[in-house]
């Protein structure tokens, strides 16, 4: 027993040691993920692995004291000369102390010190990076931390208890890990609740901290070369996530997230001819307005844009943008309605007025173009007679602007192929090469060609760079817009300030919202995207305003429900009628509240009965007793002096039909009770059925 206990103690210590190493390695990976401390975190990981595998029992000594003294000198050098900053040099110091402790892990105090150091390292890592991967590291760290703290507490308590008592379970057993996991989950649930309730002193702003690498997205600067958009279409990096809230259903609507618009084409690149910009009006709550006209706010489609860091100040949204909410210093607009924000927050809300104009309305419009409009939007710097002839040929036979536009669009869709490779890269006139030679290209070529052809036809049009709607995530109800969704299309003017989007590119349409089957909603990528969205939206940028919004929403919902109920019950003539109205309004809740306890009670009863039944058939005393009870009800009582075998014979004489069952049960009782016989599954089933038969005797 003594040696077994010693083994137990050693096994416990080894388990704790392994736990500490896992914790250190996790914090090392977290520091690595922060993308700021590659060297030091790599050293920590390598040394941890070496220490664990090659140094079974770390020993301290004077060497470590010397190393500690030397490192102290290095710390100041690191602070004042190498990193020139306190924070990273402190993290380096933590790493050194952790390595020191790993080789000097003797008593409980050492373990607690390592726990503290790994915690501080995780704190540093999570302050340096806010990517979604850091959330996974935090969760893993929390689970390991809980395991370590709980295990060392249990081992300490066990050491103080009865010395003859062995440790009752393994620290790596599934059950124990199940308890740890459950504790971690409960902790996170409480943490989320506390997180959402905690009052915010600031508005969830990072305080100037760099959230990660900035992506380069070309095509949204003041001048874009033909082909700029194609270069980012090969990249599947995420650009932004957009959640759309609409007062009316938008079934079948395809979103185009408008970015930059250009009106001047010089044969190779697009730009905006006029440098005129205007600043948007800003109110007291960081809302920017684009139009002075009264627009019913309830008719606007709200788009919550969560943007990854990109090197462009363009604000994206569905046309026509009416209002903008965001932490911008200022927002400007040019003549082509391109919005540029100063400040570049990661989140902003765009409110758009989506007006669907039917082809019939567009067809019936009689448009007169002012001269200044024609100067910009029908301008062709370098005329090409061949393209002009093509434009005339395509649009022959119609005077209607809409029909002529559609003719051009159909022509391009039918006669040209979409590709992102083997592009018509001509030094001189890429559009001509596309239209007459290659006859294939990507969206920029299609859109540019359309705009040029329409201008030759005298129809004002412009080019727009932006993004297609992206992939819809049903779990989180948001669109994931990637660089590969970058797109170019045309806008055509129909008078009275109405610009209509036309997209001539025969590009594959991305699955729109609501079209995915149930199981396709739970693909790993969508699940991870949802988690990432939740992390960004509800943790990283959760602000006091969000808290107010939640409270207001709950309050408004409550008031609305109350108001409706009061209105209906006011009309009721009697209290019975009033209760009937309450029932009609809330019958689901009432049914659930009333039935749920009943269902629970019945389920519990059923389970207890089932459990009791199982116990009866497994226990020889119980099943024999149950048999006696049943026979007692039939008038057959076993005398105390009678043996079970004698009683069975009596039953056979009195109830011959039951004699067989009773004899068999008696036989099983003898064997199980006195003969150490273990009842098989068949025996149990037989007993159950025999007892049922006795009921029907």
């Amino acid at each position, binding site marked *: 027993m003594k040696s077994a206990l010693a083994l137990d103690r050693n096994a416990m210590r080894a388990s704790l040691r392994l736990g500490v190493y896992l914790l250190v390695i996790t914090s090392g990976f977290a520091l690595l993920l922060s993308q700021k401390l590659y060297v030091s975190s790599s050293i920590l990981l390598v040394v941890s692995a070496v220490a664990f595998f090659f140094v079974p029992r770390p020993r301290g000594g004077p060497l470590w004291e010397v190393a500690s003294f030397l490192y102290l000198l290095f710390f100041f050098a690191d602070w004042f000369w190498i990193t020139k900053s306190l924070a990273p040099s402190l993290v380096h110091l933590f790493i050194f102390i952790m390595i020191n402790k790993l080789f000097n892990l003797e008593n409980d105090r050492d373990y607690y010190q390592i726990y503290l150091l790994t915690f501080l390292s995780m704190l540093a890592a999570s302050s340096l990076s806010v990517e979604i991967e850091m959330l996974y590291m935090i969760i893993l760290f929390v689970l390991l931390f809980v395991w370590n703290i709980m295990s060392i507490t249990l081992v*300490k308590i066990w050491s103080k208890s009865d010395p003859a008592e062995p440790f009752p379970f393994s620290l790596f057993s599934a059950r124990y890990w199940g308890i740890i996991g459950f504790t971690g989950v409960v902790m996170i649930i409480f943490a989320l609740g506390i997180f959402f309730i905690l009052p915010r002193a600031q508005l969830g702003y990072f305080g100037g901290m760099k959230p990660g690498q900035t992506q380069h997205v070309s095509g949204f600067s003041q001048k874009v070369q033909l082909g700029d958009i194609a270069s980012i279409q090969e990249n599947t990096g995420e650009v932004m996530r957009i959640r759309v809230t609409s007062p009316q259903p938008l079934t079948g609507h395809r979103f185009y997230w408008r970015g930059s618009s250009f009106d001047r084409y010089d044969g190779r690149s697009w730009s905006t001819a006029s440098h005129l910009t205007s600043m948007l009006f800003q109110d007291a709550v960081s809302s920017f307005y684009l139009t002075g006209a009264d627009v019913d706010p309830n008719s606007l489609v709200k788009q919550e844009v969560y943007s990854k860091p990109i090197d462009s100040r363009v604000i994206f949204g569905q046309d026509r943008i009416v209002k903008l909410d965001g932490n911008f210093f200022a927002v400007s607009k040019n003549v082509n309605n391109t919005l540029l924000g100063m400040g570049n927050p990661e989140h902003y809300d765009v409110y758009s007025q989506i007006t669907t104009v039917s082809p019939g309305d567009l067809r019936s419009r009689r448009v007169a173009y002012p001269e200044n409009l024609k100067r910009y939007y029908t301008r062709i710097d370098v005329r090409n007679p061949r393209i002009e002839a093509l434009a005339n040929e395509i649009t022959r036979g119609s005077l209607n602007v809409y029909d002529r536009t559609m003719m051009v669009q159909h022509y391009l869709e039918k006669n040209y192929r979409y590709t992102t490779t083997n592009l018509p890269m001509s030094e001189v006139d890429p559009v001509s090469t596309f239209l007459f030679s290659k006859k294939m290209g990507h969206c920029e070529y299609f859109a540019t060609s359309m705009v040029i052809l329409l201008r030759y036809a005298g129809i004002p049009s412009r080019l727009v760079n932006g993004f297609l709607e992206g992939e819809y995530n049903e779990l989180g109800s948001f669109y994931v817009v990637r660089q590969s969704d970058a797109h170019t299309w045309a806008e055509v003017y129909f008078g009275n300030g109405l610009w209509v989007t036309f997209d001539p590119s025969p590009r594959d349409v991305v699955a729109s919202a609501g079209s995915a089957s149930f199981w396709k909603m739970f693909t790993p990528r969508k699940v991870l995207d949802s988690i990432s969205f939740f992390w960004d939206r509800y943790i990283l940028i959760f602000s006091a305003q969000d808290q107010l919004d939640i409270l207001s929403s709950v309050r408004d919902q409550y008031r609305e429900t109350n108001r409706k109920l009061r209105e209906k019950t006011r009309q009721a003539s009697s209290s019975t009628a009033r209760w009937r109205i309450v029932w009609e309004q809330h019958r689901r809740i009432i049914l659930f509240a009333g039935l749920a306890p009943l269902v629970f009670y019945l389920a519990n009863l059923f389970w207890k009965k089932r459990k009791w039944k199982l116990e009866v058939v497994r226990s020889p005393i119980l099943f024999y007793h149950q048999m006696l009870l049943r026979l007692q009800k039939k008038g057959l009582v076993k005398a105390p002096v009678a043996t079970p075998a004698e009683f069975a014979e009596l039953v056979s004489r009195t109830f011959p039909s039951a004699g067989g069952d009773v004899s068999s049960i008696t036989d099983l009782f003898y064997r199980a009770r006195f003969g150490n016989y273990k009842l098989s599954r068949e025996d149990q089933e037989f007993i159950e059925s025999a007892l049922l038969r006795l009921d029907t005797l």
Partner: protein
Amino acid sequence: MKLRLPRFAIAVEFTREGMIFVLLSLAIGAAAVNTGNNVLYFIFSLMLGMIVVSGMTSRRMLQGLQPTVQFPDHFFSGVPNVCYVSVENKKKRIPSVGIRFIIRDPGFTSVARHFFYIPPRDHISGYARVLFAHRGVSHLREMELQTHVPFAFFLKIRRYFANKTVRVYPRIYRLSEEIVTNISEGLFRESPYRGESHQLLHLRDYMPMDSSKRIHWKASAKAEKILVKEYQKEQGRDLYFYFDCFAEKLPDDRVETAISFVASIAFFFKEHEIDARFIFPGNTFQPKESIHPLLIYLAEWDGSYAEGEILEKPSTTDAVALQLCSRAFPSRLPAVSGTRTLFIEDWQHLLVEERVVQI
């Protein structure tokens, strides 16, 4: 005026690790509020969540537990003893882990016992060491079950009311030969009568019904007939032992030593079946019949002198009277002729070796 805070049935005490954890949480919370950094808010929330879970789990560990403790009937001061502790877990499914039974009642000695694992619907028992440093009556009013589980940040305590009284008898010393000789000086005399003492009176012929243990084999062999030993009758003098060691201010170490001295002598006399009377103001005890009344009295008596109490005087003229006094305190008892005085200061240096006695 002493402020008395309400004592809750379940209380919490911080451990060192818990204090560090809480301070760290507050620091991170302050940093979060200061910077508005939501990641810090999240970490702060996780730490608070950990504290909440810790509280809930430790409370659950202590729920459904019922401790009981049984003390032996007799305790001697300075002698380690054990008590029997049992803890029952009435919970249906949840075991209790890391439970510590402890008595921290100020009016009682401290007792502690750890139980690592108490299965559901089961109980666990064990012995716990008990040591009373001083004689007296100790009342147990409260006992506790504590746990550090799950994270050892806090010590969760659940208090249980108790109502037990334990009498602690004075310390018993082994009496040296010097003390014994001095005390028993003049106590015994020879007797011509038959009796049951250990002193041999004479040998006589064997008679039927005599016990074979009394046969003197050597003499029988010599005489070639069976001879049986006959013993003297007890013919000791009566011993009256007066306690006259009363201090002005109590408690006093010299009084305690004197009480232990008296108890040790009483044990010696009982073991050697010496008839003696121990006389205290208002009380007389004869340990030969039963030592319990004397021990109980010595456990409960506070050592004070009760004025006007009658003292029993020796009934025969040849009785031996001893009076235990202290040079530090004046004698309170009336003089009894022929009394020999013993001063505790002369003998206390010989009271070194404690002995464990069984009653």
